[in-house]
């Protein structure tokens, strides 16, 4: 029984962390899908989301409004970032663009230090955070929020990419940008849309995790890297698969930490990344297709 409740506890922790990774990983996938760029500033969107919502709450705004506003503000930051950094350099090679995103992520961290300083801050939980006992394991309402939100996003994304015109247009830009343009789809607009949506998702992830682990200017980097691993594990082109990959990484990390050693959890998740890149570079959940990542 004790073993069972311990396993359950680890599963809860894994799902929570996985949910956070998932929200950011989806952002990776959307941008990659549309522009072919790996956006390494993705984790910084989460950082901005968390810190902006904290500032808004401190300015006495209700929590829900602060969260919505911070998502909007971060989406706007994403738009500026896309127009200034990516759009202007869109003719450059992919490597250049990726390096640009790394540069932007460093700049974002610098801006965050200037605005919020280096100290850790925290956001109140979305709802009353009394732990729920479940078969001797505990689950916090905030964890449920994290898991619930990413499941909702999973469903929305599936619907968006498969059943809406805009979603299909986004996919079309990736499959064949030239043909997409012939069909009257504007890849420039799509690129802007993709960055805005993923910035918003990143901000949401940030506000979800801030009550759990606090927020500081450097929180984005590790989140971004882990989410990237999740996206690659799931297959970079498929949003639902990336979410599944994120939960997988979260659970594997939790179990490594819980049953083995916390020092090894990064080793395990990064080894998994390498293994996938060697053996199944199209991702664990990719359908067989001619397109390679």
């Amino acid at each position, binding site marked *: 029984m004790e073993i069972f409740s311990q396993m359950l*506890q680890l599963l809860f922790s894994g799902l929570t962390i996985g949910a956070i990774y998932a929200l950011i990983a989806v952002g990776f996938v959307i941008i990659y899908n549309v522009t072919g760029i790996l956006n390494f500033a993705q984790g910084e969107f989460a950082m901005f989301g968390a810190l902006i919502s904290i500032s808004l709450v401190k300015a006495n705004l209700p929590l829900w409004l602060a969260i919505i506003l911070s998502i909007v503000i971060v989406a706007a930051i994403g738009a500026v970032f896309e127009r200034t950094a990516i759009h202007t350099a869109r003719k450059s090679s992919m490597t250049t663009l990726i390096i640009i995103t790394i540069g932007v992520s460093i700049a974002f961290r610098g801006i965050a230090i200037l605005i919020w300083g280096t*100290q*850790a801050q*925290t956001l109140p939980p979305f709802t009353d955070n009394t732990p729920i006992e479940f078969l001797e394991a505990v689950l916090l309402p905030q964890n449920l929020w994290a898991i619930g939100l990413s499941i909702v996003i999973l469903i929305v994304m599936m619907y968006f990419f498969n059943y809406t015109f805009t979603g299909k247009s986004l996919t079309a830009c990736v499959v064949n940008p030239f043909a997409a343009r012939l069909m009257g789809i504007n890849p420039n607009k799509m690129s802007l849309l993709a960055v805005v949506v993923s910035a918003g998702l990143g901000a949401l992830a940030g506000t979800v995790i801030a009550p759990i682990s*606090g927020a500081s200017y450097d929180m984005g980097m590790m989140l971004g890297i882990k989410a990237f691993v999740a996206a690659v594990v799931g297959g970079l082109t498929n949003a639902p698969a990336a979410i599944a990959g994120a939960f997988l990484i979260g659970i594997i990390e939790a179990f490594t930490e819980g049953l083995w050693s916390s020092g090894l959890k990064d080793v395990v998740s990064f080894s998994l990344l390498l293994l996938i890149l060697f053996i199944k570079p199209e991702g664990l959940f990719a359908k067989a297709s001619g397109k390679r990542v």
Partner: protein
Amino acid sequence: MKKTLLSLFLLMGVLVLAACSSSSDRKGDASSASSGTDTSGDSIKMAGIFSASGGAAALGEPEMQTLKMLVDQKNADGGINGRKIDLVTYDDKSDQNEAILAMKKALTQDKVSIVIGGTTSGNSLAMLPLAEQNQVPYISVAASKQIYMTEDGQARKWVFKMPQDDQQAVERILQYLKENDLTKVAWLNVANSYGTGAHEEFGKHAADYGVEPVIEDEFEATVKDAKPLLTRVKKESPDAIIVWGTVQESAVVIKNIRELGLDIPVLASHGVATDQFIEVAGAAANDVVLPTGKLLVADKLEDSNPQKELLKAYNEAFTAKYNKPASTFGAYAADAFAIATKAIEAKGSDSAALRDYIEQELGEYVGLTGVFNINADNHMGLSPDSFAMVRIVDGKWTLED
């Protein structure tokens, strides 16, 4: 030209008047200063190099502010033996290269008699070789033991250090565990030099205090959820749990301890001894016990404690000037300045004489951080008792013991 000279002279007159009104017996010195137009030759040059911005700003800013405040006060009171302190300050922006450059400038261009600073251990270690080469006494405000001691345990000739060693905080915790009969202990530290250094000390001394670690592990500084790790801790059912880290990661781990319903005493490091920890950890911070300088609990010290009045006076002066509570880090700078002042009072501005005074003649000195007993073998001079054990109760610091 004549006009500037005149205004300079007038300024000097005002200064002399100020000096006269504060203390009449220094009149002679003060008026002699006004006879020359160049006062810098007669003032005492002191450098303050702190990380007032950048990653270590939370520590360095109050240090810089404290030193500036104290120098202003001292000068307003007529200086040391009538000689004004000419303070040059540098912000090393939490960067080691900047720190070295600042040190070089202070020693070769400003030609200061004594240097105070080095907010982080890294910066202090980077700066001290220059002080040794130039034979200028340097008082560090960072924690590492290596700052005042070489690898083979020799004292560094020109370097002194104000804060306690991290190791002493570990010993203080072990003392506490022994006093409270908590023998089976879980040790968790953050996976960086702050955590591993303390872990080493813990391993060395735990047995001396009859403390038996039932589980020892690490968590990263970016930890988001430590519950997996804590499920393992829970299985070992320890009497107490030590969480050794700085604010953010300790807050996460301690929150998780509460969430899992682990109902055992939680001890934390002196690295979380700031109000910010209480803010970030919220209710989970309650009942955490940790070692810290006595500043946080100055009001609760016994009246017989010689540090009490000093601490209260410093806290009041700092709060009045900067409109925020004083921090332990600022107190390090205050102690450094007080010791430097005593040395200058006795010896003037000669660097070598200042060094010798601090090492050999200062004797027992009651400072904000503790009671210093600096001698030729120990250029830090504090004992583990200089840490008080405090408990957080309803978001307030209270004295344990």
